[in-house]
């Protein structure tokens, strides 16, 4: 009798759990790996909401408009057929969540309520109170638990994925993983593997809004085994994150929307409390530089302005990387009512009250648009992605798939707010279906892969552990991670410069070298957290280098990737038809000819090798530049 085909899924966030459900429903056995109980995955952090066109607010919103907003918001860098399919399937996906029991907020009529989110004109974001990601994850978590109770899914929680096992044809046939309690390393056979390990914000250290699981280490491991990373230079920075020693926490746009003002003291050495600094000694730089928009400029513009004040003008508060976001001039009752959730977070984590004291904020690494390269098959009849094709979400390593924030799929050069819970869920569903198709066509028997392939890989991983456990160097992994965060955030951050990037790449190589001379300061090999941490740190440094090399290579401004000397801006007060505008449009089109292409990074002995791939622009050809005026 033939053995049932088995799939390993790594990651239990929205991407991983959705794919697990679809693989299990197709009748294949699933082994689900996660660093900890899947219910604690980073997806729970998302507060804002998830996009899907329902048009229940009388705004004539359309799926087409959702598609256009996503493509334009991403500066046309995303392959268009998958985006088209995602926007089309979004409402059905949300209804499925609803059936699973997700408590979406309701209107008086009992319909799912919609809210407005950044970068778009129509209300299109469904939400569940102030904890949408948590509720969505719990919905799929419950269904996975049901499948688990039926024996279709087995969980391996507290196991860390370390590497792939490839057969003689370089097809993925399993993994090695480490038990985070015993530190035992084992190999696991599988007919296919799905990686759903989330984002990589931790490469920016504590200067990120991401959870500790978002290291990108797993993606970097498969990259070193031959998988391509795509568009990693595109990283979204959230302009207004609250500072913290452990992490920076997201402060929603709404604070600026409701009248919050951003400023720094004219004199960075000013030691007075902010409330004691009189108006004439304050510099409201957004209001002064962007008189018509003031504090409500879009995310990327705000991030760059804050960057300029802090880095170029050296005017950060107290000489540090921070500026004030001030609500104290507003009516306390009004902001309490409008911004209750945000105020609460600030009070809870900072012990200070934004009603009486300006908040301290700074841009923070928030979302990786780039990630593992994945394929798709275009459906010529619909122009979207072909449902059930085994090419969808396949990496360039046969048998290895990727979904969720760790892939590079749907957001091009910049992500629209509330689109990534959607892409994580949708891509998980698609990847699960693609793997089911792949397995149906698979001829060979898993047991024919020789055992030594697995044993060798386990031995290689054990050797890495042993070296680290025995290493008695000078370096402290936690301090190194801090350095990495500072380096990435100040030199591969919001604003980029080629000389600085070159220096950063050298410094990253040096960091990598130093990370080999670690001292774990620990002899206990039971639940040794430093070991796993250091292994992840080494991957983050390598990943940092991929990001920096990709950023150096891309000589243009697009979406979140910004090099000031190469900026094309729409000439003021000009509109389509004006000669000056049309000249700009021509320059913009020329730039697209040169640079509208996907960055592919592949690993080589000498570091990341960069090449490019064309983008599928068959849904919305780039005729209209993004224009937020």
């Amino acid at each position, binding site marked *: 009798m033939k053995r049932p085909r088995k799939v390993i899924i790594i990651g239990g966030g929205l991407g991983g759990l*959705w794919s697990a*459900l*679809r693989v299990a*429903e197709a009748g294949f056995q699933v082994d689900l790996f996660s660093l*900890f*109980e899947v*219910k*604690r*995955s980073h997806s*729970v*952090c998302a507060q804002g909401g998830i996009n899907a066109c329902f048009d229940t607010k009388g705004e004539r919103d359309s799926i087409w408009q959702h598609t256009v907003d996503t493509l334009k918001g991403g500066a046309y860098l995303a392959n268009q057929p998958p985006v088209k399919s995602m926007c089309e*399937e979004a409402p*059905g*996906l949300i*209804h*499925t969540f*609803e*059936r*699973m*029991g997700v*408590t*979406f*907020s*309701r*209107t*008086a*009529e*009992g319909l799912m309520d919609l809210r407005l989110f950044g970068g778009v004109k129509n209300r299109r974001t469904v939400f569940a*109170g102030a*904890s949408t990601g*948590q*509720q969505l994850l719990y919905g*799929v978590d*419950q*269904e996975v*638990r*049901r499948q688990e*109770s039926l024996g279709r899914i087995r969980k391996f*929680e507290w196991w860390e994925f370390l590497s792939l096992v490839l057969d003689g044809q370089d097809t993925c046939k399993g993994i090695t993983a480490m038990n985070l309690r015993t530190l035992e390393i084992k190999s696991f056979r599988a007919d296919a593997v799905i990686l759903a390990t989330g984002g990589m914000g931790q490469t920016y250290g504590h200067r990120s809004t991401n*959870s500790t*699981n978002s290291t990108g280490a797993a993606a970097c491991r498969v990259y070193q085994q031959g998988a391509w990373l795509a568009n990693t230079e595109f990283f979204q920075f959230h302009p207004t994150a609250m500072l913290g*020693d*452990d*992490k920076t*926490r997201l402060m929603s746009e709404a604070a600026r929307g409701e009248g919050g003002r951003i400023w720094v003291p004219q004199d960075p050495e000013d030691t007075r409390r902010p409330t004691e600094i009189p108006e004439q000694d304050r510099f409201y730089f957004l209001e002064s530089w962007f008189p018509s928009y003031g504090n409500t400029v879009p995310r990327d513009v705000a991030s760059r302005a804050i960057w300029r004040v802090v880095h170029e003008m050296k005017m950060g508060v107290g000489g540090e990387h921070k500026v004030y976001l001030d609500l104290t001039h507003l009516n306390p009752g009004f902001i309490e009512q409008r911004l209750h959730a945000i105020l609460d*977070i600030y009070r*809870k*984590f900072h*012990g200070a009250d934004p009603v009486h004291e300006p908040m301290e904020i700074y841009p923070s690494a928030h979302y990786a648009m780039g990630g593992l390269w994945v394929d798709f098959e275009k459906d010529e009849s619909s122009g979207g992605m072909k449902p059930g094709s085994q090419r969808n979400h396949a990496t360039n390593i046969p048998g290895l798939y990727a979904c969720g924030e760790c892939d590079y799929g749907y957001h091009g050069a910049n992500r629209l707010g509330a689109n990534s819970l959607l892409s994580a869920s949708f891509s998980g569903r698609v990847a699960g279906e693609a793997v089911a198709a792949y397995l149906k066509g698979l001829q060979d028997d898993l047991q024919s892969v020789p055992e030594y392939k697995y044993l060798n890989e386990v031995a290689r991983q054990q050797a890495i552990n042993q070296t680290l456990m025995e290493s008695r160097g000078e370096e*402290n992994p*936690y*301090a190194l991670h801090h350095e990495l965060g500072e380096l990435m955030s100040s030199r591969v951050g919001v604003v980029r410069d080629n000389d600085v990037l070159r220096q950063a790449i050298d410094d990253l190589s040096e960091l990598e070298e130093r990370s080999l001379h670690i001292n774990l*300061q*620990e*002899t*206990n090999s*039971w*639940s040794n*957290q*430093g070991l796993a941490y250091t292994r992840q740190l080494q991957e983050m440094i390598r990943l940092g280098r991929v990001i920096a090399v990709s950023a150096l290579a891309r000589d243009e401004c697009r979406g979140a990737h910004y090099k000031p000397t190469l900026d094309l801006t729409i000439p003021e007060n000009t509109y389509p038809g004006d000669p000056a505008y049309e000249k700009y449009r021509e320059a913009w089109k020329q730039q697209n000819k040169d640079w509208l292409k996907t960055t592919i990074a592949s690993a080589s002995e000498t570091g990341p090798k960069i090449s490019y791939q064309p983008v599928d622009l068959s849904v919305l050809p780039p005729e209209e530049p993004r224009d937020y005026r």
Partner: protein
Amino acid sequence: MKTIDFQIRRQDDPYSPPYWQSFSIPYRKGHNVVSALMVIRENPITQEGHHVDPVAWEFNCMEEVCGACSMVINGRPRQACSTLVDTLTQPIRLEPLSKFPVIRDLMVDRSRIFSDLKKVRAWIEIDGAWDIHQGAPRVSPEAWKENYLYSRCMSCGCCMEACPQYGETEDFVGPASLAAVRLMNAHPTGQYHKAQRLHAIMAEGGLSDCGNAQNCVRVCPKEIPLTTAIGELGRQVTLQMMKDLLGKSE
């Protein structure tokens, strides 16, 4: 120099005896217990100047939403990431949750919380995670408001730590799993399988083990009205028992 002082209960592995160690770190405004533990792990030296193994603990989101970082802080079970040092009396005493087996130091094995969720069938039965091309039933804003309170349970274990009936050896499923039954039973289609869930909590280790001590509701970091849920379930169970007596199924 102003410092922040800690006494931490440590345990090297599940089988070895616990012991206490004291640490001091330089004072900094704004520390929470997680960020302070990060300082300790970077340089694990006790107050006496001994170099020791870093303290192991669990955390992920640092925003009080993943439930990972529960521990007993100055005698009270709570989330380390949202507990500000400035609100605590020192030395700050950190202990692992006592109702779960210790893995190491402040880390415990909470897998039982998740198997209890299986026991009470805390899910909605759907045919499959595919699109069925129709909207789901409507929910009134009032019902939503109540349900939403319960849907924020992050399985952190604080309520179980506080509950006198919940123990490492007892099989009581605890307040959070009961509240999950309350939530699933209120869902428009979840109602179809209400009887199954109620039968699960009418069995041993279910609702009748609750002594109504109300400790749970006082410690829940998400302010989930656990005892309200338990009260509602009491009524649902009574009705179910009557139905069972009369031989009606659902």
